[in-house]
């Protein structure tokens, strides 16, 4: 249980200062958070599988990575705002898991785009960008996440839970199918992510039960949260051109195929929670394009304005 603390036990606990002067920039695994990250890191430079267009693969890694990055950011907004201290810890764990997945996927995207002969439709400006260049120096239209991930919750716990329930149910279904991806990095992220997302889904489902079948107020709030978020569910099952080509190549999963599983899980949870599955029309697209093509809600711009502000103020800085 104190596996990530073993380092300290070698020191005299009364002399914690000792280690300071010897501190190096070596990444302490505790901070990378997520024990599998180092293993995954080693594979980021794996060759692109035969027959796969690097631009497609880079775009797909961005889709999966941006979903995780932006959703993690939204969950992080709860820090110091959670309804109970135990939930502070649980929400931060979830945000850290997703951030860990995002880092590997963005690093893979950056590596692969550096190998690519043609610039992808996402408008990859440079070659071989690292995770931070991708996270901090892209504009809204270069982000590939689904709208669901970027929706704000205004610190309404019901909305946070509704978003996490749907997001984690869907992402778990995706990652299950990506365990056998021909891209070794995606397969590795799926391997680690399935365990994490199983927990996130479980957490969200338990809270959906408590809120749905708790008090009158919590029931009303949870139902309202589901109603508000439901129009964004449809996009999760829309297949982009890149995904279609990568499914052929054995790298990606067709999100449309996860629909039955996601529906079944949500139906079961909502029924147990005495909640009603909303009947709401899906949010419309713009000429058939949505998050996967870089067209977002108005909210993403604000997320990025905040997230990227410091990094953009200091070009060339190292942190």
């Amino acid at each position, binding site marked *: 249980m104190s596996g990530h603390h073993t380092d300290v036990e070698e020191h005299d606990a009364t002399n914690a200062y000792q280690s300071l002067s010897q501190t190096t920039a070596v990444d*302490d695994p505790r901070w990378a958070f997520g024990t599998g990250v180092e293993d995954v890191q080693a594979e980021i430079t794996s060759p692109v599988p035969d027959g796969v267009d690097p631009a497609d693969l880079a775009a797909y890694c961005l889709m999966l990575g941006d979903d995780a990055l932006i959703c993690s950011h939204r969950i992080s907004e709860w820090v110091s705002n959670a309804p109970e201290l135990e939930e*502070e810890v649980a929400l931060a764990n979830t945000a850290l898991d997703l951030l860990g997945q995002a880092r590997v996927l963005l690093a893979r995207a950056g590596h692969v785009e550096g190998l690519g002969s043609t610039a992808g439709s996402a408008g990859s400006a440079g070659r071989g960008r690292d995770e931070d260049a991708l996270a901090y120096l892209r504009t809204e239209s270069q982000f590939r996440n689904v709208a669901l991930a970027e929706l704000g919750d205004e610190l309404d716990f019901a909305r946070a839970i509704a978003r996490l329930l749907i997001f984690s149910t869907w992402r778990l279904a995706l990652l299950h199918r990506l365990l056998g991806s021909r891209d070794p990095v995606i397969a590795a992220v799926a391997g680690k992510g399935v365990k994490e997302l199983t927990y996130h889904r479980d957490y969200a489902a338990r809270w959906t039960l408590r809120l749905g079948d708790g008090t009158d107020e919590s029931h009303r709030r949870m139902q309202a949260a589901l109603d508000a978020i439901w129009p964004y569910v449809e996009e999760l099952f829309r297949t982009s051109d890149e995904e279609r080509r990568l499914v052929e190549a054995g790298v990606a999963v067709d999100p449309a195929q996860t629909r039955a599983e996601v529906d079944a899980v949500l139906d079961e949870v909502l029924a147990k929670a005495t909640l009603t599955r909303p009947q709401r029309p899906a949010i419309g697209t713009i000429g058939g394009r949505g998050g996967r093509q870089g067209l977002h809600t108005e909210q993403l711009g604000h997320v990025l304005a905040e997230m990227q502000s410091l990094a953009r103020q200091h070009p060339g800085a190292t942190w």
Partner: protein
Amino acid sequence: MPDTDELAAGFEAEFERTIAADQRIEPRDWMPDAYRRTLIRQIAQHAHSEIIGMQPEGNWILRAPSLRRKAILLAKVQDEAGHGMYLYAAAETLGVDREELTEKLIDSKQKYSSIFNYPTLSYADIGVIGWLVDGAAICNQVPLCRCSYGPYARAMIRICKEESFHQRQGYELLLAMVNGTEAQRAMVQESVDRWWWPSLMMFGPPDADSPNTQQSMAWGIKRHTNDELRQRFVDMTVPQAAALGVTLPDPDLRWNPERQAHDYGEPDWEEFKAVLAGSGPTNAQRLAHRRRAHENGAWVREAAQAYADKQAARSRKEAAA
């Protein structure tokens, strides 16, 4: 049957023997009422400090300048929530409950460390908080691992282990920044200038103004005086500042070969008192934030309790059927 006074005297003697033998007092042991009250205040306010302390650092999570720094900061602030929990649990062994202590915090009936009433104005503050503020906290907390009250001492051991990571990440961030651009170096120095004196104030007023120190020391709740700890902190920090290439903003700071320690200037105790009394730069903001989070969470906590009650009733019904 012996009368109550005799029994009381026996218990008190037993308590004194335990303390004198440097053994731990445990929750079910008899303890003097004043010992209990002093501990509750100290542990509860330590817990409050952890929880309020999430805010100044949390202020930068959404703007952390790299994904690695974001993960580090998120994990660190999460640790602080955990530390608050460990400490509230230790306080609960003394007969108070967390809800009650939280209310005393948001009603300003209990305090938290003044250091968290200063704002975080640049990302260098994240590094400086790790280095100076967590560094000062380690000086304060390490002796508490030997506190006479068992639950507090054990909570502190867990916390101290995690704190040393906190301090390291802070110092490491500062190292990266002073080796970065000119603007980053300036940011670090500006941050050190702002945090140095408040960090020294974290040790509390000079010993001469701490009348109750002797009682706390006799009880083994306190192991060193405020000034001893402050001196230790200054002596440890000076070479670390040199390694970073930053200047500590105290013209009186110099090595005194006779004392084999650094002389240093006097912090502005008027500022300390003002911040403690509630007029620090962010006192009102911090408390309002904590109150808002607690109140916004009330319906969630109630829902979970209502659901648990319903489930329990259902299983009782099933068992009866």
